[in-house]
């Protein structure tokens, strides 16, 4: 029995002395519960909306008031034309636009009914559904409590339009996120593992002694993954287009260029990870837990960013995938061009530069 206890004790020692294992056993569960608790919320708050009020009478104003004081919505802008509606959606800040027809109050009095249009940005199908339902509920409660209660048999029929994604297909959400995830996996993780492997096996030393300069070594390591990533990206886009009927409203070439940019970013991130990893395990570990997991949860892939607490939103803003997902969604679903996504593009390019500069610095330090 004593032998057995001695053995079990040894196993405990192994666990407590390995920081990676400790992280998985204690750090991960806590982080996961916190993140999932905050992130996985189907409630929405502070959703930015736009109002296009063609009528501007007391009833439309009352309804608008009810909507904006409900606590769920924030009036971001008042729109004055159809074109402005499209622009607002493309900019991606408003999730919904409520359009009141002209002569709203008068139509109610004369004809007993008036129409209001609820246009929701359905590139995120779940949120669009929830948001439009909330809005409808508010309007219905107004009808019940204000109009019918006063004996006015008015009817307000909201017409709901799901923009960009009429059938509320979930695939619109998943394709951009999946692309980001797979490109990160192949480019960042595999690159970092590959370089770390040379370090671990000792062959890196021999390469460094040879006339091969460090830059060609790294580029040579990176090229196969770049090619594979690009092929992967094309396959995903092709599958989503042909099999899932996801549109490519915008320019396909532009989409591919942005994809290449993201691949470069992921490759340079992979290189950076390899400079701080001495073995493949470490590289894989960092890639998995510091990269893939947060990307899945916090990049807006599955859970909308606006609903997260500020801290998580802040963390989300340093996730490169978040910007790529925005870019892809914009190009594929909304047909946006560079004028809309220039900010995200610039951020990705900037991140790439930073990662590369940091990698070069770390490499130089190694050679002292």
């Amino acid at each position: 029995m004593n032998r057995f206890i001695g053995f079990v004790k040894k196993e405990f020692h192994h666990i407590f002395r390995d920081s990676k294992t400790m992280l998985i056993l204690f750090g991960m569960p806590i982080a996961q519960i916190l993140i999932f608790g905050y992130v996985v919320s189907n409630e929405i708050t502070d959703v930015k909306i736009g109002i296009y009020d063609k009528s501007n009478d007391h009833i439309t104003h009352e309804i608008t008031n009810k909507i904006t004081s409900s606590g769920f919505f924030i009036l971001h802008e008042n729109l004055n034309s159809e074109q402005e509606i499209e622009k607002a959606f493309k900019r991606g800040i408003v999730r919904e636009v409520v359009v009141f027809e002209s002569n709203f109050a008068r139509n109610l009095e004369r004809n007993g009914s008036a129409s209001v249009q609820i246009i929701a940005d359905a590139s995120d199908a779940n949120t669009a559904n929830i948001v439009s339902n909330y809005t409808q509920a508010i309007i219905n409660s107004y009808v019940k409590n204000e109009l019918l209660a006063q004996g006015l048999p008015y009817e307000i029929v909201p017409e709901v339009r799901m923009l960009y994604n009429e059938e509320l297909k979930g695939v619109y959400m998943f394709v951009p996120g999946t692309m980001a995830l797979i490109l990160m996996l192949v480019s960042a993780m595999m690159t970092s593992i590959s370089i770390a492997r040379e370090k671990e096996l000792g062959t890196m030393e021999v390469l460094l002694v040879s006339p091969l300069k460090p830059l060609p070594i790294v580029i040579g390591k990176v090229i196969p993954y770049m090619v594979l990533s690009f092929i992967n990206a094309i396959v995903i886009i092709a599958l989503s287009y042909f099999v899932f009927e996801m549109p490519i409203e915008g320019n396909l070439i532009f989409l591919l260029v942005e994809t290449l940019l993201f691949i470069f970013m992921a490759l340079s991130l992979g290189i950076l990870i390899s400079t701080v990893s001495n073995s493949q395990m470490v590289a894989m570990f960092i890639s998995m837990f510091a990269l893939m997991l947060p990307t899945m949860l916090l990049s807006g892939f599955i859970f909308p960013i606006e609903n997260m607490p500020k801290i998580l939103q802040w963390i989300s803003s340093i996730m490169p995938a978040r910007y790529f997902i925005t870019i892809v969604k914009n190009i594929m679903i909304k047909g946006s061009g560079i004028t809309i996504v220039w900010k995200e593009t610039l951020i990705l390019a900037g991140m790439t530069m930073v990662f590369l500069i940091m990698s070069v610095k770390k490499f130089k330090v190694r050679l002292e």
Partner: protein
Amino acid sequence: MLKHENIIQVKNLVKKFGSFVANDNLTFDVKRGEIFGFLGANGAGKTTAIKILSGLSFPTSGDVIVAGFDVYKERELVKKNIGYMSQKFSLYEDLTVRENIRFYGGIYGLSSKYIKEKTSDLLERLKMKDIQNSLISSLPLGWKQKIAFSVAIFHDPKIVFLDEPTGGVDPITRRDFWEMIYEASNNGITVFVTTHYMDEAEYCDRVSIMDKGRIEGMDTPGGLKKQFNAKNMDEVFIKIAR
């Protein structure tokens, strides 16, 4: 063959890692064509010195000339003229014998034709023609060692650095390996080998023994034994290290 020309010249080499002095004012020369043993216990500073000589890291201070080139300013030329065999043998386990040779020949700038010819030649001499397409991982340690050495001198460097090349193999295999080293030396290649097997010291033309970052003895094996009044190199080492 000019046996007296100095192919490596080291003067006051210092290498510090923070406040830790790994190489403390090393001064020595290696003559062209000789087999120079760089001995010392683990942690004495051998690997650090060899990394500096092979251009893998920079000295903190001191003059280091390898194969006629300055390691500070002419690193690329140093690299072109040396070969290196690391402690871990440096071959790719998931590539074949042939593929490894092809790869290393290529990165030293040899033409495909030349590589082909020389590879045939090499495989013939090593009697490894029938395993040329086997993965390195399938070969016994002694064979890997021989292939690694052959690859290190494939491009006919002036100097070849061997960092503990015989770790983990039996005495017979070690003896065989040293035959290869002799052959290379006879062909004019200077061999700079580190080891902590003191019996291998006897095989060298000259030997230097490092202890705690300093060279505490340097001479032919015979000279050292006389100097320290020892029967063999083991004893020399013990007397130095104590």
